[in-house]
């Protein structure tokens, strides 16, 4: 049996249950199944209580017992505890009684939920003795690895598809990271990184560090439950790329129940994809329990993963929680971005447009009943994907610095409206 470290007991294969030591290893040697961290829940239950939480700092690390580091975290101490916003104006537009936005578009320091997974992966990488960190990324992860590595004094290599938005490229370069642009889509970047990871002994956050990395996403779910006043939301809508965040949201709800932070109740976790890259949603709609890989073609580049590693488990989450999957077109994504911005003052990246657009469809179809309540997970900031909405959100009107010209403009617009 592996040696216990902190609250972690071992790594265990989700498929066959074989256990491994708590090292930088992500797949089972036997069947390639993903490895997951096993915790000592009995000890966590005694230490992670509502009472203990009351005096802890407002960051994701307040749930430290169920995050996979052996000692105290050393990277990203300020990450998380982003606002949970009551969204009444958007609720009216979507036709639902109660709606909340979990706003990771303002996560620290790089404005996406990836700061959660990266602070865990880098803290753990340090514990395991690595000084070079790396990742395959659709943009947000690269930004976060670059920034957090810089602040931790670690060297970073980030690998991205060559067609990324400029905002996301510059957001990695500025921190001094080695940014390697690959002529191909994300799945090809991933394949290459798997081969690089086998050869270079680096901490690849989403390859050999994946069991630790992925657990960081649970903090978003813990926060939702706490911020709702210790209640699991009846419905949660989560954007899906690899499907990892969705599975970890479910896991966070399960664990919160398991250690007695919250009472068990009925809840459904729903998944959102872009139609131009919707292998999981397509499988759900076809009633399959496996997905067919696709070649991505969507403006939601942060979700453009055609071979989603956790697709199989995401489909299981729908089955277990009564959740559903939906997908939306590029136009619907832009509409979703605008709707969220105009009703709640939150500017999300394309993935948020996907989540809002899919929530609208799920509510309209009754999969999320109108008299229920829901939380939408907004995972990234709109300032990073300006290219996707430029030219679609209206335009400025230019005048000279003259009151007469402004009066004329007001009058002209009043006429247009009255017409």
């Amino acid at each position, binding site marked *: 049996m592996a040696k216990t470290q902190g609250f972690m007991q071992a790594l265990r294969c989700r*498929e066959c249950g074989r256990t491994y030591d708590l090292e930088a290893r*992500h*797949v*089972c*040697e*036997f*069947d*390639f*199944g*993903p490895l997951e961290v096993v915790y000592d829940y009995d000890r966590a239950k005694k230490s992670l209580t509502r009472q203990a939480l009351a005096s802890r700092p407002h960051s994701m690390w307040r749930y430290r017992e169920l995050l996979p580091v052996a000692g105290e975290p050393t990277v990203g101490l300020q990450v998380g505890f982003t606002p949970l916003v009551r969204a009444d104006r958007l609720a009216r537009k979507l036709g639902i009684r109660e709606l909340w936005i979990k706003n990771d578009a303002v996560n620290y320091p790089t404005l996406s939920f*990836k700061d959660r997974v990266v602070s865990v992966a880098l803290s753990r990488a340090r514990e395991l003795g690595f000084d070079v960190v790396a*990742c*395959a*990324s*659709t943009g*947000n*992860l*690269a930004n976060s690895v670059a920034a957090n590595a810089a602040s931790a004094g670690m060297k970073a290599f980030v690998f991205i598809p060559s067609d990324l938005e400029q905002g996301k490229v510059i957001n990695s370069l500025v921190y001094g990271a080695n940014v390697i642009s690959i002529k*191909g889509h*994300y*799945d*090809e970047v*991933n*394949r290459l*990184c*798997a*081969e690089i990871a*086998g050869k270079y002994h680096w901490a690849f956050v*989403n*390859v050999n560090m*994946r069991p630790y*990395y*992925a657990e960081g996403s649970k903090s978003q779910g813990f926060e939702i439950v706490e911020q709702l006043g210790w209640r699991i939301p009846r419905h949660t809508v989560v954007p899906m*790329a*690899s*499907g*990892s*965040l969705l599975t970890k949201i479910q896991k966070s709800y399960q664990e919160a129940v398991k250690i007695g932070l919250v009472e068990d109740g009925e809840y459904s976790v729903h998944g959102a994809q872009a139609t131009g890259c919707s292998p999981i949603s397509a499988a759900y709609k076809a009633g399959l329990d*496996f997905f*067919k*890989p696709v*070649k991505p073609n969507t403006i939601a580049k942060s979700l453009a*993963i055609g*071979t*989603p*590693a*956790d697709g*199989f488990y995401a489909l299981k989450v729908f089955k277990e929680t009564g959740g559903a999957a939906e997908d939306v077109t590029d136009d619907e994504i832009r509409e979703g971005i605008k709707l969220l911005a105009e009703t709640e003052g939150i500017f999300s990246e394309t993935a948020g447009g996907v989540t809002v657009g899919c929530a609208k469809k799920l509510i309209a179809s009754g999969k999320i009943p109108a008299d229920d309540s829901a939380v939408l997970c907004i995972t990234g900031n709109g300032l990073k994907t300006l290219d996707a909405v430029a030219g679609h959100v209206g335009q400025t009107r230019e005048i000279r610095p003259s009151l007469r010209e402004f009066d004329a403009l007001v009058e002209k617009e009043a006429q247009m409206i009255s017409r």
Partner: protein
Amino acid sequence: MSATIRIPTPLRKLTNNEEVVETSATNIGAAILDLQTRFPGIQERLLDSNGEVRRFVNVYVNEEDIRFLQNKETPLKDGDEVSIIPAIAGG
């Protein structure tokens, strides 16, 4: 004629740490059988009990996923490069 197969780290214990092996098989299914003959035990790592490629194993021929080609029937010719890669989390 021969194609090369890149062996992923988790399987190298079976191939005596060889990273690249050659095969004269003419399709992916036959290549896996060929590997099994030379490195007993490798087949059950790659295929499930129904003989299909395991859920978390991705196989590529010249950088293309075989699920976009002809799965196990995907032909191999001289100089082709086969990669076997575990599924990876998102980014």
